[in-house]
């Protein structure tokens, strides 16, 4: 099958685990940001700048972004292999799906590079 070769870990169990580990990381990050914003209602640029100036916050943010990309790849792979199928789309299904996955890959790499630039690029 041409489906499994485009999955993230080439194994359903591995994908399942990666997606869940990433989910826990992202949930922790969402709670962290929400608590920070809720406890600092009059947030200033200086405070925000200092928060992201700390190495651990940058690393936490980058790990969250990596989790997002892998989690999204696994999730969108499931969606694409469910709907861009020969039964629903006819003979061009595989070509369409590979094109969609190349596009998603391009967006993912853009997000990653942009994210690194944001986190390590500001003065």
């Amino acid at each position, binding site marked *: 099958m041409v489906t499994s070769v485009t999955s993230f870990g080439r194994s359903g169990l591995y994908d399942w685990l990666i997606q869940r580990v990433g989910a826990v990381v992202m*949930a922790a990050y969402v709670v962290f940001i929400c608590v920070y914003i809720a406890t600092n209602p009059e947030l200033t640029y200086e405070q925000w700048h200092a928060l992201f100036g700390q190495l651990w916050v940058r690393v936490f943010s980058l790990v969250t972004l990596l989790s997002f990309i892998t989690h*999204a790849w696994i999730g969108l792979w499931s*969606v694409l292999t469910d709907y861009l199928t020969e039964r629903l789309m006819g003979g061009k299904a595989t070509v369409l799906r590979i094109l969609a996955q190349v596009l998603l890959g391009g967006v993912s790499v853009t997000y990653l590079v942009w994210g690194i630039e944001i986190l390590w690029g500001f003065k």
Partner: protein
Amino acid sequence: MNKKRPVNLDLSTVKLPITAYVSILHRLSGVFLFAGVAVLLWMLDSSLDSQESFAAVRDASNNPVFKFVLWAVLAGLAYHTVMGIRHLLMDCGLGESLEGGKRGATIALVLAIVLIALLGVWVW
């Protein structure tokens, strides 16, 4: 694999239970968030770049169109997170029965709607 095996899953002829709607929305919110995260990255980028661009994010959050976009992204995130936590609980064996699944879906849906409403209050 036998490609000629019979398939009969015309969803429009099947009455879907709440668990199905909750699951379809989980997928849709996930697809939506893949695009929506660009808004959050833009906000992070501008808020860190300089004092002026930080103020620009503040100003943008007073714009009604931007308010709506931000609320939509946060609503998608809230829904997907609540349903994701339900998934993790089910992976641990909680609410896996037919009745438990329906109850879990209802509780998660109510929780998500409350969170989305609260986010609306916060954004506006």
